[in-house]
């Protein structure tokens, strides 16, 4: 056997690839395929999949829609586009995830910039300070934030002690937004920092020497060069936000619904496996589009991810 492996490179490739390929096909692709099939099945009395095949689950998502744009301020700024339960849910999930990504970026960019300009010694320390929350259990971190914001938590206890009225923070749409930003901040800071650290600051000097003002130097020189980190960070923030389950539950008390949470509900509280599968597939399509955009703009920069 060793002889055959030595003489035929293609056999060697097959031997190296086999275990991983087997695992990916059987325990990643096959489950997704089964989910796709189930999304076209009907539900039985208990909510489990049963024949016949139907388009009903997808039709439910787009049923009774009316294009009705409006603007509201609950849960941060919410631009409504549609009326209709699930399409509105989908749109709101995309909108709030984008909004949280933008807010995360607004906090993360100054941090990454600050870190990149520190002297080397302090830079490593700062990097370590970002790595800790990056690798800390997401559930534990979100729980810590919930603990802080609770009705009788440390913040409100402090406010009461100072004779101030307590804040109604927890289980609101605002709390969900705070939770998304809090949870995803390290995933934005780290890739941004990786790009900024490699950035050659003499480029900015050169842009200035050639007559560009700071804004122009930033948009035309710095932004293109750090875009891999920017895009990676945005994807690493947007995808967990739109699929978020822990944050929506612990910070919003389930009252602010996002699609990821809604999908999970179809498999726990209100059992409807076929409909849940259809929703999951729709979300996968959205995320895949986001991912394709990522690969387009950050080709060959996979190292930013890890």
């Amino acid at each position, binding site marked *: 056997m060793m002889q055959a492996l030595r003489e035929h490179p293609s056999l060697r490739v097959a031997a190296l690839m086999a*275990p*991983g390929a087997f*695992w990916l096909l059987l325990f990643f692709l096959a489950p997704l395929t089964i989910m796709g099939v*189930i999304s076209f099945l009907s539900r039985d009395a208990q909510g489990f999949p049963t024949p016949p095949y139907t388009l009903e689950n997808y039709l439910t998502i787009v049923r009774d829609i009316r294009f009705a744009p409006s603007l509201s301020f609950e849960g941060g700024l919410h631009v409504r586009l549609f009326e209709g339960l699930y399409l509105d849910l989908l749109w709101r999930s995309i909108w709030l995830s984008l909004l949280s990504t933008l807010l995360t970026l607004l906090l993360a960019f100054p941090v990454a910039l*600050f870190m990149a300009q520190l002297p080397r010694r302090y830079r490593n320390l700062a990097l370590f300070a970002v790595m800790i929350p990056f690798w800390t259990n997401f559930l534990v971190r979100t729980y*810590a934030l919930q603990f802080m914001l609770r009705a009788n938590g440390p913040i409100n206890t402090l406010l009461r002690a100072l004779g101030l009225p307590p804040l109604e923070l927890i289980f609101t749409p605002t709390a969900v937004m705070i939770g998304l930003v809090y949870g995803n901040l390290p995933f934005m800071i780290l890739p941004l920092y990786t790009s900024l650290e490699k950035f050659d600051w003499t480029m900015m000097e050169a842009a200035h020497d050639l007559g560009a003002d700071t804004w122009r130097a930033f948009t035309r020189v710095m932004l293109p060069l750090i875009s891999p980190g920017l895009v990676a960070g945005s994807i690493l923030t947007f995808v967990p936000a739109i699929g978020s389950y822990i944050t929506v539950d612990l910070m919003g008390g389930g009252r602010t619904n996002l699609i990821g949470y809604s999908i999970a509900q179809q498999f726990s509280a209100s059992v409807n496996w076929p409909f849940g599968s259809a929703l999951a597939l729709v979300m996968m399509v959205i995320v895949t589009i986001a991912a394709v955009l990522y690969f387009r703009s950050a080709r060959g920069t996979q190292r930013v991810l890890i």
Partner: protein
Amino acid sequence: MSTDTPIVLLGEREAVRPRVREAAQRPTLGRFVLTLIALFTFAFLYVPIVVLVLFSFNSARTGAVWQGFTLQWYERLFNNPRILDAALNSLIVALVSTAASVVIGTLMAMAMERYRFRFQSVWDGLLYMPVIIPEIVMGISLLLFFAAIRLERGLITLIISHVAFCMPFVYLTMRARLADFDRSLEEAAQDLGADEWTTFRRITLPLLMPGIVSSALLAFTLSLDDFVISFFVTGVGSQTLPVYIWGQIRRGITPEINAISTVMLILSFVLVSLSHALQQRTSAR
């Protein structure tokens, strides 16, 4: 001219760099605002964690008023058989799935980096997918899969699922390491008469070791921390620690949760310190 210019430029750039760094550190209003936002963000990240740790030593059963130092919540933790069971489950799942995904992922990275074959780009895309798609989709699809093949949910389904989401991360890490690999060392070994197996064992493997260790730490942390996927593929008697904590949080806040969260924080801290130290050592070399 075209051949001379880059060299001159390079020389100048090196000379200019210290001056620019100094300029970046000159106290200006912009820099002051930047520092302020950065410090605020670090505080935002750390205050909840620090407060949680503090209150795990608070003797008050409810509320957030400090009533004195106690270790009783930790004592209860280590006397609670359900927590110890969950911790053991987490450890078993993390160890087994780390070992499996490191082997499988490294082999795949070798094949993908060193050979060219048909459908390679398809595999490349497929290996990225588990990293990109939301955990909840992966958890649900695995739940449906195990239901379809009638495999009872338990440690086995947990391990299968954890390998499925850890292995692509190992693959990506190892592929990056292999891309930097100096193959002339292997050629030198073979020129000196080593056969392929010896070359692999004596040259390739030792040189890849730092990458293997850091990808193992990555996989171990990912597995230990995972809640969403585990939540869907766990069985009645096979709860992992995060799944157990989730159940407790849903029932209401207790000081025990603060204590167990602190233990998990310390664990993460140790793992991060290890991988950070490792990275510093590798990059110093």
